[in-house]
């Protein structure tokens, strides 16, 4: 599978020589997980063991990549620049005559670099190993079967009214952030009645308007039912039908 298409030409592998078509540079860099990965690639391309790297040659190559990136006006990742500095330091040290008894506290940057490369390579490999492990949802699936009918002693979770209110308060706060929702205070008895009316209407064609009211509920009950029907009409949940003047009024759920 090509990892990049450059000037209409599919590139199937990383370039063998140092020259990278500038258009491919970005993709090329994305193929690496950072400066250590790039360095490892440069070393491997020379078929070298990490321990045998010619720091000088690798530094040259790395620097030319970095320069190329710079020329491309890439915003160089700090990590790549930092590595360039490390390599530059190593190179400069190698050019200088070495004092026989340097302070022991300071570690040789070459050894440090090699160790970092080795350490990184171990985990690069470990990541590949993990990728190979048989995994659920790709290589295997956990088996299950339909449980038998259970006379489950249902132990339902307890809910405290405060939890419910807390949850609602949370939704409202969130909803406030999206200003399109406004939940204003309304008489809940109307809402409750709306549900009841809808239920009465469900599965039936037309229900006489008067059948929705019950005298036993008294004046307040009638008012609540009336408000509920009005609200249902407003929300286009029911429609009112009257076939002739002063004829009986019927109510019908819109969707039935």
């Amino acid at each position, binding site marked *: 599978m090509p990892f990049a298409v450059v000037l209409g030409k599919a590139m199937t592998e990383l370039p063998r020589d140092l020259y990278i078509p500038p258009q491919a540079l970005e993709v090329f860099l994305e193929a690496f997980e950072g400066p250590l990965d790039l360095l490892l690639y440069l070393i491997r391309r020379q078929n070298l063991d990490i321990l045998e790297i010619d720091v000088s040659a690798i530094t040259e190559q790395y620097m030319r990549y970095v320069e190329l990136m710079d020329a491309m006006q890439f915003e160089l990742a700090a990590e790549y620049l930092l590595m360039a500095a490390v390599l530059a330091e190593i190179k400069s040290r190698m050019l200088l005559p070495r004092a026989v008894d340097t302070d022991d506290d300071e570690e040789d940057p070459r050894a440090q670099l090699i160790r970092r490369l080795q350490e990184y390579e171990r985990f690069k490999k470990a990541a590949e190993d993990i990728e190979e492990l048989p995994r659920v949802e790709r290589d295997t699936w956990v088996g299950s079967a*339909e449980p*038998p*009918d259970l006379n489950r002693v249902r132990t339902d*979770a307890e*809910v405290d009214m405060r939890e419910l209110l807390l949850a609602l308060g*949370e939704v409202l*706060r*969130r909803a406030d952030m999206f200003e399109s929702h406004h939940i204003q205070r309304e008489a809940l008895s109307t809402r409750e009645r709306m*549900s009841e009316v*809808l239920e009465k209407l469900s599965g039936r064609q037309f229900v006489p308007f008067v059948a929705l009211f019950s005298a036993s509920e008294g004046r307040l009950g009638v008012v609540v039912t009336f408000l509920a029907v009005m609200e249902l009409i407003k929300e286009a949940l029911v429609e009112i039908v009257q076939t002739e003047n002063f004829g009986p009024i019927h109510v019908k759920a819109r969707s039935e």
Partner: protein
Amino acid sequence: MSETSTTLIQILEGALLAAGRPLTVAQLGELFEEHERPPNADLREALGVVAERCTDRGFELVEVASGFRYQVRQSLSPWVGRLWHERPQKYSRAMLETLALIAYRQPITRGEIEEIRGVAVSSNIIKTLHEREWVRIVGHRDVPGRPAMYATTRQFLDYFNLKNLDQLPALAEIRDLETLNAELGFNEPLPAAAAQHAEVENLSGPDETSPDHGMTH
């Protein structure tokens, strides 16, 4: 039995166990590339063997309306049922929010709840609310898809010791939870679990603990 059909049988066994839902003969056929797909007669024959191989097992192969599935033997329910005897799990915040919106905004559709909450409402939540008989469908909105409209039930009122919905605290008060706590006479601090519900973001289904807040049940 030929070697190919042994593989066929194993494929069916594996698929039925992995699916966790009934599979039709046609669906089982689709496990194979077109050129290697066994004829339905072979599939049915292999299913027969799969069923036979359950003799004396804790599970059996049954055919239900939507296909074939493995099912745990009914005789084992006294033991298997204990798997579900664990302490009840706390309801998720998603579930509580859904219930609260149904109570305060009924009749309301799932889509409307989702719009207010800003996230999808899982089918599990609706199912649980139905199972507890706290909500019911009171009709369908006359819009494309004819979504069901939910309302709360008498059982809901009973559970929360309410005579009617008017006894629920007014929405305006809920915005100020501290005042609310005081007004409702909740002087003790909220149960830890409830407070944590507010933290755990959007868990649907039974509450799971995220690794960050090591909460104990």
